[in-house]
């Protein structure tokens, strides 16, 4: 269901700032999320969506994934955001306040309508639902399975702590339960798990610590507010040398197994089967994206 594209770093870019938009090609993140929601005041929604459209029409060398964070569909801006921006072919939509599966289904239906209108393949536009309220956390398991377009679940701690009427701390203890549940939902549905932003751009050590914690929980990427945060996040998500070495051994072992016509093989006394191979490929793809290995073996062997 889900694609396995690398999404370690998803950088927010304010939708009404040409100076940031036109640097999108230069930022070294895996994805950008062009923001039409919180970064744009109500009186400038029309200007921002037109600016984003014209920018994307001219952004032909797409060297990273482009998502647009629209306004919620129950506001008077959400549908206009889609109407204006989708013809310029973003890869997908980050949907704020995805509190229930019905909210995602509503967007799914709209996207299908636009795809038909634009003559595109159905399913072309992906969805990244934002889990950012108590309701969202409670319902995220159903949300994660509410559409085939879902590429991952994104956790949004700023709105979540507001909905809980609590403060967000640097240690993040207050987020632990919500984060765990979002990761469960994502893993069970076979989609990616994207952690929340770290707002203090100057606190590099804090960002590193938080990224290490969420990587340990199972998150595969993080939303970012500043391009200066990209490098640290990539460093943390980079596989360690021993992980890479082991992954290469696994892939080599499964290749030999395929040649012998079997699906399972043992490596150093441990069984190597499909899930182990899948994880090995993920490690190698991540390593390759960071220049740590020269090439990614053909994933056809995953499927025998």
């Amino acid at each position, binding site marked *: 269901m889900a694609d396995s594209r690398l999404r370690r770093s998803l950088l927010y870019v304010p939708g*009404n*700032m*040409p*100076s940031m938009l*036109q640097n999108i090609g230069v930022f070294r993140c895996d994805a950008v999320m062009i923001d039409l929601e919180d970064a744009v005041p109500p009186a400038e929604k*029309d*200007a921002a969506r*037109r*600016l984003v*459209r*014209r*920018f994307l*029409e*001219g952004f032909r060398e797409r060297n990273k994934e482009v998502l647009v964070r629209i306004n919620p569909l129950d506001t008077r801006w959400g549908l206009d955001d889609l109407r204006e921006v989708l013809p310029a072919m973003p890869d997908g939509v980050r949907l704020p306040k995805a509190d229930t599966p019905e909210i995602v289904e509503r967007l799914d239906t709209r996207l299908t309508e636009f795809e038909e209108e634009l003559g595109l393949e159905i399913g072309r536009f992906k969805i990244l639902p934002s889990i950012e309220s108590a309701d969202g956390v409670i319902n995220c398991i159903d949300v994660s399975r509410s559409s085939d377009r879902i590429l991952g679940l994104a956790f949004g701690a700023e709105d979540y702590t507001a909905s809980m009427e609590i403060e967000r701390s640097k240690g993040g203890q207050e987020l632990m339960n919500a984060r765990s549940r979002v990761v469960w939902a994502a893993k069970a549905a076979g989609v990616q798990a994207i952690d929340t932003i770290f707002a203090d751009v100057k606190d590099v050590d804090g960002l590193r610590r938080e990224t290490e914690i969420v990587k340990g929980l199972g998150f595969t990427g993080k939303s970012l507010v500043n391009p200066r945060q990209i490098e640290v996040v990539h460093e943390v998500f980079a596989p360690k040398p021993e992980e890479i070495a082991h992954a290469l051994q696994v892939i080599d072992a499964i290749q030999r197994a395929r040649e012998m016509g079997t699906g399972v093989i043992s490596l150093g006394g441990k069984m190597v089967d499909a899930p182990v191979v899948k994880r090995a490929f993920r490690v190698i793809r991540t390593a390759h994206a960071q220049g740590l290995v020269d090439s990614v073996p053909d994933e056809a062997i995953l499927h025998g």
Partner: protein
Amino acid sequence: MTIVRKAQAGTMQSSDLMVFLEPAPELVIEIESTVKAQFEHLIRAKIEEVLRERGVGAGRVRVTDRGALDYAIQARLETALLRAGGE
């Protein structure tokens, strides 16, 4: 379309521009730019192209440019036109 009321769009940030429109009997385009010496003719050409596409033949178009690229000039002028009268 016709410019029926005063409107503006854009910001004064770098790489952006502000467009001010108001009704006038004839078309007048005034350009202020940080890069006026080198690029005024290109900015004017882009503005004229957008106005022509939308059939705008009259009005005062005043632009304060901070080094905007073509896509931003187009987007800001289009937004100002929508605000100034509707298409």
